[in-house]
């Protein structure tokens, strides 16, 4: 005769034991899902906080534009209708932050940017190329949009430069960064231009100017002196003089 109660107990123990691995797997899966959900939710919260910050920055942008527009009275009247568009096309600070991954920006002066962009008459060929593409989109407000799309310009030129190592593009980047006050990046691209073509006057000038801005005045003067010796560049001589006299700081 079999001992049924004992067998039933043993069977129950066996059953519990056989369900244990499945239960553990299920539990670990659930825990995994919870952790994953938690991990994915946490960054989105951060995104929200960033999103809250961004509008604050954007709110400041129209003030800057208002100054710029006041300086260009003939453009103001036709632009009134497109004020909304101008606001949305304001420079993105985030992009500039991304650009700073390898180096720390020593100085950053957004006001300078607006002034410099307005002096677009002297920009090189590369700048002209970018401007023409923007003109196709907004032919009437070409000047304003060029100023506001600086970030896009840089992005675009960066991409092109990665594909085609054209010194004109790197020089454009150097100048653009210099205008934006990102002197480290400016010096970097000036050097790259110089490596690609040593005879471009502007690359030496931008590099020296950036050095001065980064408080390496002596270094900048030495470089200019050496360059003048080999190239007899009058622009370089003028800049050297300006640095020595303190006219350029």
């Amino acid at each position, binding site marked *: 005769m079999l001992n*049924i109660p004992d067998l039933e107990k043993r*069977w129950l123990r066996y059953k519990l034991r056989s369900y244990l691995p499945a239960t553990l797997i299920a539990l670990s899966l659930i825990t995994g899902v919870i952790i994953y959900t938690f991990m994915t939710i946490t960054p989105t919260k951060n995104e929200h906080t960033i999103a809250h910050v961004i509008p604050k920055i954007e709110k400041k942008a129209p003030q800057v534009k208002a100054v710029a527009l006041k300086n260009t009275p003939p453009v103001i009247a036709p632009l009134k209708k497109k004020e909304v568009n101008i606001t949305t096309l304001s420079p993105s600070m985030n992009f500039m932050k991304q650009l700073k991954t390898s180096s720390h920006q020593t100085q950053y002066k957004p006001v300078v940017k607006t002034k410099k962009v307005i002096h677009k008459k002297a920009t090189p060929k590369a700048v002209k190329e970018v401007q023409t593409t923007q003109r196709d989109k907004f032919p009437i407000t070409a000047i304003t949009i060029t100023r506001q799309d600086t970030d896009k310009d840089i992005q675009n030129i960066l991409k092109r430069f990665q594909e085609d190592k054209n010194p004109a593009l790197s020089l454009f980047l150097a100048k653009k960064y210099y205008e934006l006050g990102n002197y480290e990046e400016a010096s970097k691209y000036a050097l790259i231009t110089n490596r690609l073509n040593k005879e471009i006057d502007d690359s030496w000038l931008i590099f020296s100017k950036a050095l001065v801005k980064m408080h390496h005045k002596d270094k900048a003067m030495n470089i200019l002196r050496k360059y003048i010796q080999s190239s007899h560049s009058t622009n370089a001589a003028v800049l050297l003089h300006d640095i020595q006299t303190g006219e350029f700081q």
Partner: protein
Amino acid sequence: MNSIYLNSKNVFIDTVNSKDYIQLDRVSTIYQSLKDSIKKPLKMILLYGKPGTGKSMFLTKLYNDLSPTQDMYLYDTPILDESEFYKVLAQDIFGTKYNGELNFTQFMKIVNSTELPSIPVVLLDEAQLYSETLMEKIRLLSDTRTIKFVITLHKTQEEDLIAKEHFKTRIWETIELENSSKSELKIYIQKKLMKANCFDTANIFTDKTVNKIHKLTNGNYRDTNKLLFTLFDLYLSYEENNKLDKIPTNKVPNKYLEMAAIHTGLIDA
């Protein structure tokens, strides 16, 4: 008490009885080939397989089927002493009773001095238990073609044995027995029960139940017999405690199969 469960339980008592032999297609084919091999002028036939695959049953059935017409001797328990082995063979096959020790040379003299109408067939079960020396003597005996041997042994031993070159050349026929498939197991269980007129219990073995049994026993006949014997014993115990109403009558719940498996040691709990 004449419970259906008691009758069903007795069906699965693990004994080697040729009357309990269940005709399955594959098994029948193998059995026929074994019978054919006996007729061939082979020196030795090796029947091997895992324990519980029905080797002993095969030998017993073969003996019961052929012994009335053929000079056949079955030794289901190994005779481990060499002298005793020769003496038993001398007495059974050649009718010579020998007192004292009998060695291989003396036995061969008896073999050569006696003329038999047909070659006797000696069936040796559990040959893995014989010593290597005795197995070598059996080989020499079969070489003389005066005695034909049919030996059964477990698969692991067979692998060792077959690996030996001298046996490779001498065993002319090897037949392997395997565990049953799911469908074979179902036929085996139902035929076994129906043979004992246990039709009600035969019907409770659905495909699902048989699959579970196959999972527990791997299709091994001996393990299946043990499991089902315990299962019906379990049913009997419930019946005696008036708790049988808990158990459905149209199928065997996994719980009771698992309980029986725990009791027989098929499940370690």
